[in-house]
């Protein structure tokens, strides 16, 4: 099947106007993935499935990732040319210097859907596709790949249920695990779960804070000790 770079090159040749990006995985698993633009995802998926060399006939896994808006600090290297001193002899080339700078950047939040593809016919895989939504608010539509791989149906429903990605073209997009009347998406980072474990015998960390809300400390001087 070749490396991810070879696959990237093949796909870029086949879909010249698609902005495909290789997302490298620096970990020991080294499962690199391909970031696919949503507009062409369906066509690319069909190509991956039908191409005689790839024959990725199985979608084994669909999962979601929530990327909230975050601020990252990057170190960038910049070459600066220093202004020439006034008394420099004419014709001196300005000295170039490499400086490192820390830059803060806000990465806008988005939702991501990851597909793991295998070829049963040719015995290779996985090829990992990533699809990104525009944001986490109301532009959360992505094309459904269920028409390409039937196996995606329930898993896309699960991603819809837990992350709130709306798959256009899905034949039966209903919640899978939670009830239909449920309004939240529990796997999002900013999900606030209902405060319904009032009692916890051994609370700690976040649960301790919550337990203290339900069992406030007795007023000072009342002779009682605070909850431990």
């Amino acid at each position, binding site marked *: 099947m070749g490396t991810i770079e070879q696959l990237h090159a093949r796909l870029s040749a086949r879909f010249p106007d698609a902005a495909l990006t290789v997302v490298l995985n620096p970990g020991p698993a080294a499962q690199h993935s391909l970031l696919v633009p949503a507009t062409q995802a369906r066509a690319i998926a069909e190509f991956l499935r039908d191409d005689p060399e790839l024959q990725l006939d199985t979608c084994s896994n669909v999962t979601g990732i929530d990327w909230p808006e975050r601020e990252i600090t990057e170190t960038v290297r910049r070459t600066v040319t220093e202004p020439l001193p006034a008394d420099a002899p004419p014709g001196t080339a300005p000295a170039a210097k490499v400086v490192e700078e820390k830059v803060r950047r806000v990465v806008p939040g988005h939702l991501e859907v990851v597909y793991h593809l295998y070829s049963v016919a040719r015995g290779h895989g996985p090829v990992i596709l990533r699809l990104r939504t525009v944001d986490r608010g109301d532009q959360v539509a992505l094309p459904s790949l269920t028409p390409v791989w039937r196996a995606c149906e329930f898993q896309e429903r699960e991603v819809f249920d837990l992350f709130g990605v709306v798959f256009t073209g899905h034949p039966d997009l209903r919640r899978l695990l939670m009830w239909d*009347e449920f309004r939240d998406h529990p796997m999002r980072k900013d999900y606030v779960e209902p405060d319904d474990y009032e009692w916890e015998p051994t609370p700690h960390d976040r649960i301790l804070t919550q337990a203290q809300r339900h069992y406030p400390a007795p007023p000072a001087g009342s002779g009682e000790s605070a909850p431990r």
Partner: protein
Amino acid sequence: MNPAAPTPEPAPAPAAAAPAISEAERAELRRQGILLTSIEELYNWGRSNSVWPLQFGLACCAIEMIAASMARFDIARFGSEVFRPSPRQADLLIVSGTVTKKMAPQVVRLWNQMPEPKYCIAMGACAISGGPFKQGYNVLKGIDRYIPVDLYLPGCPPRPEALLHGLMELQAKIRTQPLTGPAAPPHLRPGADGGECVIPDFGPHDLEPPHDSARWQPPRLIRTE
């Protein structure tokens, strides 16, 4: 003879608090082939030895419940092998496993459909408190938030022996249940209605109500020192 004079009634036998005949005497009688019993005892003996559970499992604990009904553990020794497929025919609800919030209304509905007298065993950490999933968003933190539980059976999962022990404890409870007075099962108390348990609705964020406040309140914390 003066007809107007009231015939002295024989004094009514005093309501015997202590049994008129001791356990040893009864055993002696039994040896002689005379069986003495009361309706209450006979009735409770009968129903405690034919507790039919509802054929209903929820998660991993259900596997242990199933194992308990198989030949090795053989729940039939205790008269409970007849797992009923309909709540209308069942006496015992074994909540065997994780009750998700999506499943909770159905569990309560099954309980409501069971006729009195009925009993409930909360089997395993999940049914008691949510267990390993307690801090999850979609697990009910104990079935006792909606239905009355007679017996809590801890473990994750409790072994089949534990379930059998639980069943024996339940049988002991049934045997001592009086048939009259305020402690009688609801179906034998005139005017008392066991009542239907509140079936929660699916709300936008949680079940509504999140627990039946008439049946369940968070435990009170008593501080010492």
